[in-house]
């Protein structure tokens, strides 16, 4: 009996159009999350990196340009560079693998690397 009524129900639902319409996912995607962080643009990245350098003892008071080299212009040694790159990791909540971290030698390279990371925030 149960099987019979179930099959009839199924048949019926297939024949007539299902009356209850589920709102499509497209409509839901238009909701804007006000809590979401703004998209990470290169300008914002640069601003945050410059801010980071300004708060770092050894580079405080120096002019930070995108073209600045860590060792030549900012006077950091290789140990300081490791530290700065780690601070950048913490700032953007990512982990930079060793071989990539060794390649970052200027502010611009750091900006480009962060911009290429999707999960940076």
């Amino acid at each position, binding site marked *: 009996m149960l099987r019979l009524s179930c099959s009839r129900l199924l048949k019926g639902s297939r024949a007539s159009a299902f009356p209850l319409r589920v709102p499509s996912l497209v409509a839901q995607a238009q909701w804007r999350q006000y809590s979401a962080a703004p998209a990470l643009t290169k300008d914002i990245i640069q601003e945050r990196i410059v801010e980071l350098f300004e708060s770092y003892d050894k580079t405080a008071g120096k002019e930070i340009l995108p073209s600045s080299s860590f060792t030549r212009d900012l006077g950091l040694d290789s*140990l300081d560079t*490791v530290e700065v790159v780690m601070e950048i990791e913490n700032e953007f909540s990512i982990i930079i693998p060793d071989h990539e971290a060794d390649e970052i030698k200027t502010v611009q390279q750091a900006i480009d690397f962060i911009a290429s990371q999707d999960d940076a925030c």
Partner: protein
Amino acid sequence: MAGNKSQVLSLYRQFLRNASKFEDYNFRNYFLRKSRDEFKKHKDVSDPAEIANFIKSARQDLLVLKRQAEISQMYHFDKLVVEKLDRHHRT
């Protein structure tokens, strides 16, 4: 020599990374400070034997640091008033 440099930098990175994992503020800052000071103290060493010695002892210390950092994460430590709660929500 170049091999040594990248080895030492990698060790330094691992020291800092593991030291910053400590839950407890005092331990964390102690190990960060200690790692920085030790590496900076030896940065002008040029004797190969001494460098090899330093790398060897650093490797052993790193193992201890890793283990202690893991153990520290098994316990809860209240945040101190001097700690920032969340670096992304500072005003």
